[in-house]
């Protein structure tokens, strides 16, 4: 048969819970500790609750699966054309430079100035610029989320399907990226995680069967229109 709870029991309960939440005033804390010394039941209850809190804080956090972020990204709605355009125009970009590059840029400006100057003084018809083979090369940035990966490489039509040729760099927590220069054309590719796991790019605008039961991502590089 259980003993009916009294007002004192309930008041003690509240006191213990406030103690566990560290919400007692300094004065209340002194009184509470003094009471713990003479009240065995209260002491036991306090220890139980404190142990419970400690055990709860110690509970192991679940391990996030490697593919978690990639799976979420694959479920996100595709950005609209408007978003893509606005992103291309407004995304801040970091300009990385070194002295050699800066000197080369200065030389290029000087040469351009020398070449342009006569044109500014003697008006004449200028032939339309010819687009060289080099200028038709387009930088393509490949990005994948792989938290926990040690290495991420990419293999595709552009590097003879040799992942050792092209490694991605980790650019932030779990995000890996590489920029490759490609001529116009269609290229199939896959990422290789930790040298053994081949996965298709979940961000790719297009994927197709590789004929062996897996799917390759496809990037379509179009020639830039000359002015």
């Amino acid at each position, binding site marked *: 048969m259980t003993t009916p709870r009294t007002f004192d029991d309930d008041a003690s*309960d*509240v006191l213990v*819970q406030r103690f*566990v*939440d560290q919400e007692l005033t300094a004065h209340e804390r002194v009184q509470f500790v003094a009471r713990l010394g003479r009240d065995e039941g209260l002491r036991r*209850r306090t220890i*139980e*609750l404190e*142990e*419970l*809190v400690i*055990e*709860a*804080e*110690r*509970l*192991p*956090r*679940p391990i*996030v*699966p490697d593919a*978690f*972020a990639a*799976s*979420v*990204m694959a*479920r*996100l*709605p595709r*950005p609209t054309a408007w*978003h*893509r355009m*606005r*992103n291309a125009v*407004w*995304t801040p970009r970091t300009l990385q430079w070194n002295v050699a590059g800066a000197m080369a840029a200065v030389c290029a400006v000087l040469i351009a100035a020398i070449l342009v100057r006569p044109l500014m003084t003697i008006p004449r018809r200028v032939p339309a610029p010819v687009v060289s083979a080099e200028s038709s090369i387009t930088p393509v940035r490949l*990005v994948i*989320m792989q*938290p926990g990966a040690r290495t991420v490489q990419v293999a595709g039509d552009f590097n003879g399907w040799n992942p050792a040729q092209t490694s991605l760099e980790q*650019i*932030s*927590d*779990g*995000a890996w*990226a590489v920029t490759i220069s490609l001529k116009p054309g269609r290229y199939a590719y896959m990422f290789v995680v930790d040298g053994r796991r081949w996965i298709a790019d979940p*961000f790719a605008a297009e994927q197709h069967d590789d004929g062996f039961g897996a799917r390759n991502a496809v990037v379509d590089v179009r020639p830039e229109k000359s002015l």
Partner: protein
Amino acid sequence: MELDDVALVRASQRGDRDAFGALIARHSRSILSLTTRMLGPAEAEDVAQETFVAAYKALAAFKFDSKFSTWLYRIGVNKCTDALRTRRPGKTSLDAEPDDGAVAGEIADHETPHWKLEQAELAWELEKGIQALPAVYRESFVLKHVEGLDYDEMSEILGVNRDTLKMRVYKARTLLCQSLAHLDGAHR
């Protein structure tokens, strides 16, 4: 340099998916922990993914009047609530405070005869005890003592005042102590 949540959210709102990927990487552990404790491991990952997808779709509505993590937790809690409603249609109102008799019965259903366990099994028993708590107590206990949030942040997440939350946490702790009381004292 690692960007803070505010910068990543602003970039994500402009449509930068890489930035949102960084937010996922940063917060996936907390959200997966929440969904695991609320739902158990079987549903946890899927609901955690749904949480991020819902957050992405609602990003435009995020006005920076709370921390991103608080806002994300709120979405996570709502997703867990939806999942629990789907799991137990019409059985229990998740918003209602359960009466103590119902709670005791629910916990008793989860007790097993194997209570004398090694110390390492205490965590497992605690996990089971948390799973057996009524949802309103469980979410309060998990946010307070597993995720380590304070009552103010919990109040923002759950939309419930501090005093009610304290009472829920009190009750959750009391129920968990009762459910673990059967363990041999040497193991606690």
